[in-house]
C-alpha cells in the first residue's frame, strides 16, 4: 500500500483534547466530530484540510484520553495517515482499530511537503525535498489485526 499526500504539520504532545475537545463528545457522529477536529490548536484546520492530506507530528501524538473519537475525527476529516516521532499508546490502538494508518518516523517533514509513504517497502519519501527514510514494519501480530479489520472482527475470525 502507498499513500501520497500533502503534509499538515503539528508539534510534540498533541493531546486528544485538542484533537477533539471534550465539549463535542456528546456525539459520536464522525462528520460532526470532523467539523471540530484540531479546533483548539488550529482553528483553520477543519476548513483547510483536504482529502488525502497527511498529518506529521512530533513525539507522543494523541496523548491524553482514550476517546476513539480522536482518530475518528481525524479520519473523517479526510486525513489519510498520521506520521509522528512517537504515539501515545491508546491513540495508537484506537487508530489501528478504526483503520487510520499511523506510522512512526523520525525524520523531518515540513508543512506543505508532498510525501509518499510506502507501507509495503517500509519507506517514506519526501517528494518536495528529495529526502527520505525508513519506517519499521508493523509487528506480525498487528499486521494480522489490521488485515482482519479491527479487534472485534479479528476475534470473530478466530472464534469461527
Amino acid at each position, binding site marked *: 500500500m502507498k499513500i501520497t499526500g500533502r503534509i499538515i504539520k503539528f508539534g510534540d504532545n498533541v493531546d486528544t483534547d485538542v484533537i477533539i475537545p*471534550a*465539549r463535542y463528545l456528546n*456525539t*459520536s457522529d464522525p462528520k460532526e466530530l470532523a467539523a471540530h477536529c484540531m479546533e483548539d490548536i488550529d482553528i483553520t484546520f477543519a476548513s483547510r484540510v483536504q482529502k488525502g492530506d497527511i498529518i506529521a507530528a512530533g513525539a507522543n501524538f494523541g496523548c491524553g484520553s*482514550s476517546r476513539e*473519537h480522536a482518530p475518528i475525527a481525524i479520519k473523517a476529516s479526510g486525513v489519510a495517515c498520521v506520521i509522528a516521532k512517537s504515539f*501515545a499508546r491508546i491513540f495508537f490502538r484506537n487508530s489501528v482499530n478504526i483503520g487510520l494508518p499511523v506510522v512512526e518516523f523520525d525524520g523531518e517533514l515540513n508543512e506543505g511537503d508532498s510525501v509518499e509513504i510506502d507501507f509495503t517497502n517500509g519507506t517514506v519519501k519526501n517528494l518536495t525535498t528529495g529526502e527520505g527514510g525508513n519506517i519499521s514494519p508493523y509487528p506480525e501480530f498487528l499486521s494480522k489485526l489490521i488485515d482482519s479489520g479491527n479487534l472485534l472482527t*479479528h*476475534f470473530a475470525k478466530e472464534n469461527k
Partner: protein
Amino acid sequence: MGMTMTQKILAAHAGKECVKGGEYIEAKLDLVLGNDVTSPVAVKEFYKAGCDCVFNKEKIALVMDHFTPNKDIKAAEQTKTVRDFAGKYKIKNYFDVGEMGVEHALLPEKGLVTAGDLVIGADSHTCTYGALGAFSTGVGSTDMAAGMAYGKSWFKVPTAIKFNLTGKLGKWATGKDVILTIIGKIGVDGALYKSMEFAGEGVKSLSIDDRFTICNMAIEAGAKNGIFPVDDITLSYLKEHGDKEPKIYAADEDAEYDEVIDVDLSKIEPTVAFPHLPSNTKRFGEFEGVKIDQVVIGSCTNGRYSDFAQAAEIMKGKKVAPGVRVLIIPATQKIYLDMIESGLTKIFIEAGCAVSTPTCGPCLGGHMGILAKGERCVATTNRNFVGRMGHPESEVYLASPYVAAASAITGRISHPDEVM
C-alpha cells in the same frame, strides 16, 4: 530473568509461565469498563460486528459519569444507547444517575476490582486500580466492545520503570504532590508504553487514597499502567469493599527494570502543574500572585472522602475569596453521604462553595463549571491541556486538595501555610 509485578499478572491471564517485555499476548479479562462517552461508540461497534452476546454480564461495568446528569439532548441520547444495551444484556454493573459516581472512584468502592485482576476500561484513567495491585489500563471503544464480546484483549507486554520510595510525606504533602513531582521530572512521555511500578519501604506510609491518586495519573506520564505492591493497607481496604478474592503477585527479585528512580517522600512539597501540561510543575517560591476565578475539588484523582476532609481542614470557619467560584464534587454517592453525615458538606456550604452531585462535569470541560476566555482554575483533577475545562484561552492549574482549598480562600494559588 525475573518478571515485574505487571508482567506476572499478564502472564497469569495469558495462561503462560513467563512473558517478556515487548511480546504480544492475548489475555483474559476480569472486568471491562466503559462510560457514557466511550460506551456508545463501543455499543455501535458491538452491533456492527454482529455480536449478539456478552462474555459475562457480571464482568462488565458501565458508568454514566461524564455528561450526566444529562447535559443536553445529545448527551441524553448517548446515555440512552448504553442504558438500552445494559438492559438488553442484563449488565449487572450498570450505574446511572442516583447511584453512579466517577468510575474510578466507584469501581473500587463497590468492590469490583481486586488485587491480581486484569482490567481494561475505555477511559484512560483506568490505570487507577493499580493502587490495589491489579493490572488495569485504558483502551478505546472498539477494544472495549471486543472485551465485552469475547472477554479478552491483546497487550504488548510492557517493560517497567521502578520508583523506589523512601521516607514519609511531610505536612501538606500528598499523593498528588508525589505524582506531580514525578511527572515534572520524567515528562508527559517519560514512561511511554511502560509500567510505573512503585516499591520500597516508603510505600507503607502511603494511604490507599494516596496510591489511587498516584496510579490515576500514571497515564499522564504516558504509562500503560501504574502499580503498587499489595500490603496490609491494600488487604484491609479490599476486605471492607466487596468479596472478590485477592490474588497477590509480587515482582521477582531479579526482575529487570529500564530504570530505577529514587523518590524520597520526605522531600516532596506541595506542587502545582501550570498550563498546559501536567509536567509543567512548579513548587511554591517559583511563582507568585497567580489570581484565580474558579476552584474545582473532585474527580477520579482527588474526589474521595479523605480529599474533602483535607480541603475542609483548611476551609473550616473561613470564607471563599470574593469573585472565586468553588465547586465541591464528591466522586460517589457514598462519599457525598459520608460528607453530609460528618459535617463536611456544611463546612463547604458555609464557606461559600457549591456542592454538586457526583459527575466528571468540569474535569473534562463537559458541564457544571466551564471556564470563560482568560479565566483560571485551580483543580484537583489530572489534566490541564489547552481547553480542558472550557475556552481554549482558559487555564487549569493542577494541585492537591490542600492547595486548592487554600487558593479558594485567598483567591490566588496559595500554599496551605498562608491560611493556616
